[in-house]
C-alpha cells in the first residue's frame, strides 16, 4: 500500500529531482527571469495537454491537436482583422471545436480507430491551413490589434496573462472531472465502456464531447500562440500533439483510459518544459535535446508498466 502511494508520486518526485539537478548544475535556472520563461513556455502546451487528458481519460487519442493549434491561430488572426478581437478569439476556439466534433463523429459513429481518425485529421487540417493562408503568416501585412498583442506579453499581478489562462482552465476542468456527473461519466467510459453503457451512460456522446473539448482547448491554445507570435503561423504547433501526449503519460494517466488526473498532466508538462529549459541552459545541442525528450517519454511509459505489475 505504501509502495503504491509512493509510485503514485513518481511524477512529482521526478519533477523535483529534475529541478534540483538543474539548479545544482547551473545558477541561471533559479532566476526570476528564467522561471518566468519556463511558465510562459509551459502555458500554451498546458492548455493543449488539458484537452488531451480529457480524450485519453475517455479512452481515446488525439493526434490532430498540433494542426488544430495552427488552424485556430490563423482563423482567429484572420477573423480578428475584419471583425474585432472578441469575434476573432471566438472564431479560433470554434474552429478547434469543429475539428474535435469531426474527430468525435468519425470515432463514434463510423467506429474508426482514434489513432487513424486523428492521424487523418492531423494531415488534412494542416493542409487546410496552408490552403486558406497560402502558406503565409496571417495577416500577411499589417498587424493584429494592439490589445491582442499586449495580451501575449503583459502581466497581471506580476504573472503573464498567458499563464493565467491555463491556471483557470486547469482549476475549472479539474473540478468538472472530479466532482460532476459528466466528469465521472468520462472516467467510467474510459475505464470500461460496456459497464458505462450498461449503467445508462450515453457513451458515444461522452466520447464525442471529449474530442470537442480537446479541439476547443487546442483552439484556445492556438489563439494564445498567435498573440505570442504576433500573427497566425501556418507552420506553428508542430509536434504539439506528441508533447501533449507525452505530458499526459508522464503524469501517470493510463493510455487505455479511465485513470489519471489533470493536475498530474500539468506536472508532466513541466517535466518536459523544465527538461528542455535545463538542457538549453547547459548549452546542450538541440539535436541531443530531442534524443533526451524521446528517452524520457519511453522511460515514463516503462514506469507505467512497472506500476501495473
Amino acid at each position, binding site marked *: 500500500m505504501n509502495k503504491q502511494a509512493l509510485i503514485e508520486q513518481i511524477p512529482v518526485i521526478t519533477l523535483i529531482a529534475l529541478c534540483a539537478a538543474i539548479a545544482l548544475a547551473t545558477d541561471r535556472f533559479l532566476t526570476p527571469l528564467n522561471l518566468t520563461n519556463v511558465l510562459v513556455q509551459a502555458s500554451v502546451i498546458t492548455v493543449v495537454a488539458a484537452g488531451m487528458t480529457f480524450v485519453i481519460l475517455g479512452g481515446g487519442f488525439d493526434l490532430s491537436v498540433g494542426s488544430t493549434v495552427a488552424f485556430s491561430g490563423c482563423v482567429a488572426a484572420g477573423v480578428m482583422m475584419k471583425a474585432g478581437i472578441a469575434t476573432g478569439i471566438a472564431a479560433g476556439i470554434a474552429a478547434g471545436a469543429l475539428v474535435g466534433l469531426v474527430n468525435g463523429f468519425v470515432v463514434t459513429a463510423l467506429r474508426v480507430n482514434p489513432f487513424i481518425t486523428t492521424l487523418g485529421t492531423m494531415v488534412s487540417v494542416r493542409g487546410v491551413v496552408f490552403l486558406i493562408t497560402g502558406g503565409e503568416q496571417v495577416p500577411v501585412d499589417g498587424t493584429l490589434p494592439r490589445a491582442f498583442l499586449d495580451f501575449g506579453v503583459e502581466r497581471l499581478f506580476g504573472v503573464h496573462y498567458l499563464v493565467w489562462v491555463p491556471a483557470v482552465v486547469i482549476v475549472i476542468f479539474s*473540478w*468538472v472531472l472530479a*466532482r*460532476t*456527473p*459528466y466528469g*465521472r*461519466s468520462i*472516467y*467510467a467510459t474510459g*475505464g*470500461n465502456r*460496456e*459497464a*458505462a*453503457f*450498461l*449503467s*445508462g*451512460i*450515453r457513451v458515444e456522446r461522452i466520447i464525442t464531447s471529449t474530442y470537442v473539448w480537446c479541439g476547443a482547448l487546442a483552439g484556445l491554445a492556438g489563439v494564445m500562440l498567435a498573440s505570442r507570435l504576433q500573427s497566425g503561423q501556418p507552420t506553428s504547433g508542430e509536434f504539439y500533439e506528441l508533447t501533449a501526449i507525452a505530458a499526459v503519460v508522464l503524469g501517470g494517466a*493510463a493510455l487505455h483510459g*479511465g*485513470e489519471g488526473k489533470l493536475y498530474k498532466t500539468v506536472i508532466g508538462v513541466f517535466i518536459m518544459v523544465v527538461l528542455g529549459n535545463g538542457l538549453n541552459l547547459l548549452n546542450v545541442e538541440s539535436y541531443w535535446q530531442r534524443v533526451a525528450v524521446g528517452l524520457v517519454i519511453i522511460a515514463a511509459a516503462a514506469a507505467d508498466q512497472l506500476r501495473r505489475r
Partner: protein
Amino acid sequence: MIPLLAAENVSKRFYATPALSDVSLSLLPGEVHGLVGENGAGKSTLIKIFGGVYRPDSGRVLLNGREVELGSPAEALRAGIAEIPQELRLVPGLSVAENVMLGHLPARAGRIDWKRVQALAGEALARLHLALDLNAPASALSFAQRQSVAIARALSRNARILILDEPTAALKASEVRYLFQAVDRLKSQGVAILYVSHRLEEIGQIADRCTVIRDGRVVARYDRGGYGIHDLVLQMTGRQIDLEHLDTGMQPGEILLRDGIEARLDLREGSIVGLAGLLGSGASQLLRRLFGAESGARYALRGRELAPSHPSDAIRAGIGMVPNERMLGLVLAQSVRDNIILPNLERFSSGRLAGLNNAKIDRVVRGLIGALDIRPADPNAIMRSLSGGNQQKVALAKWLACEVDVLLLDEPTQGIDVAAKAQIHRLIREFAARGNGVLFASSELHEMMLLADSVLAMREDAIHARIDRGRGLTEKAVHDAMHGQ
C-alpha cells in the same frame, strides 16, 4: 499404484499469510481428482505449485514417485504437467492445427512442415475423438471446442497430467457433456486430471476422489459416491448453509412487467422468475433487450408502455441489469464508491455539470456496504482487489442505490463461491420480498430450483414453456422443457 503426481506436506506462505499448510494430494493414472474450496482457500496456490509458477516453502512434489523441483512453467510442461486455464490463450486468427501445435511447430530445414502440423494436430484431436476442421480459424469455434483445442495442445506435448481450472465456468449444459466425454477418454488413456470447480454437482458426477481445502488445509477427502453436495459445502465453509428453496414469503402482487412480444413473460410484484436455456437460447439477449442494451423490446411496466432504445430509458423507468460477466458491469480500476454511484450520478447532483453531493453519496454507499456485507467495508477500495462474490454484491448495490423496481440478472452467481452465492440469493429474495420483481437467467438448474417461483424455458430466442412452483416445477421438467422434450 504410484501416483503420477503428488504433493507431500506442502506449505507455502506469502509474507506473513499462510496460503497452504501441510497439504498432501496425489493424482493416480487414469484418475479424475476433484479439488474444491472457497475463493482464497488455496486452490490456485496449489495449482501454481504443480504448474511450476511457485515453489513450496516446505514439503515435496513427487513425479512418478520421485522428488522433482519444478522451477518454471516450462519445466512443468516438460515434466508432462499441463494447466488448462480459464482463459484459453488460443490465437483467434490462426488455424485449429496451428493452435494445437503452437510453440512447437515441427520444422524441416528451417521451414515449417505443414503436413506434419496437420498430422500431429489431427492425432492429438483424435485422442479426444474430435473431428474439427483443422484449417478453420480458432475464432470460428465454440468455447467448448476451443477448450478441446487447448487440451489437444497439451496432449500434443505429451502431457500426462492435466489441471483443469474451472473448465465449465463458461460452458452451458450441453457443452459440459462434450467436455465430460473428452475427460472420460483421457482417463481411459491413463491421463491424470486435477479438476478444480465451483460447481459441486459436477464434482459428484466426474471425480473419482475429491479433496476439500479450507484456509490452506485439507479438511476432507472423499471417494466417489461417498459424499453429497451438503458434505462439500459443510467442509468448504465450516458451517451449514441453506441450499433449499426459500419462499420470499410474499403473495405475488400486481403485474409489474408484461411483455408485448413474449406473451408468457409477466413479472409480478414480489416474484422471482427464472429464464432457463442453453447457450444461444436467447435468454441473455432477452434480458439485454428488456434493458434497452439491444433494441427490439416492447413491454408494459406498471401498465406504462416502454420500448427502451438505450439502457438509460430502462433505468429511468426503474429497471436495473447485472450482466453475465462482472467484467461487463463494473469498472474494475475504480473504487466501490465510484461503481455504486455510476448509474445514479444525476440522482446525486442537481445537474450534469453541477457538483456531486458527496455527503449524500457517502451515506448511501456506506449504508449499502453494510447492508450487503461488502468486504472490505471500504468505499474507496479498488474493485479489482475484491473477491468475485464481493464484486457481484457491488454490481447489485449499483441498482439498490437507484431503488429500482425490477432487476434483470444474467447468471447472478457465476464463478463465485458457495457462501457468497447463498448471500447473493438471500439479497435477491429480500429485494423481491419488498414488492419488487426479479427476472434472472441461469444455466445452473440447481440455481433455478433454489430461486425461481416460476421458470420460463427458452429455446431458439423464444419462451417455449412456463412452469410455476407448486405446479410441476422440478429439475427434470425444466430440463425437458429447455431441450424441447
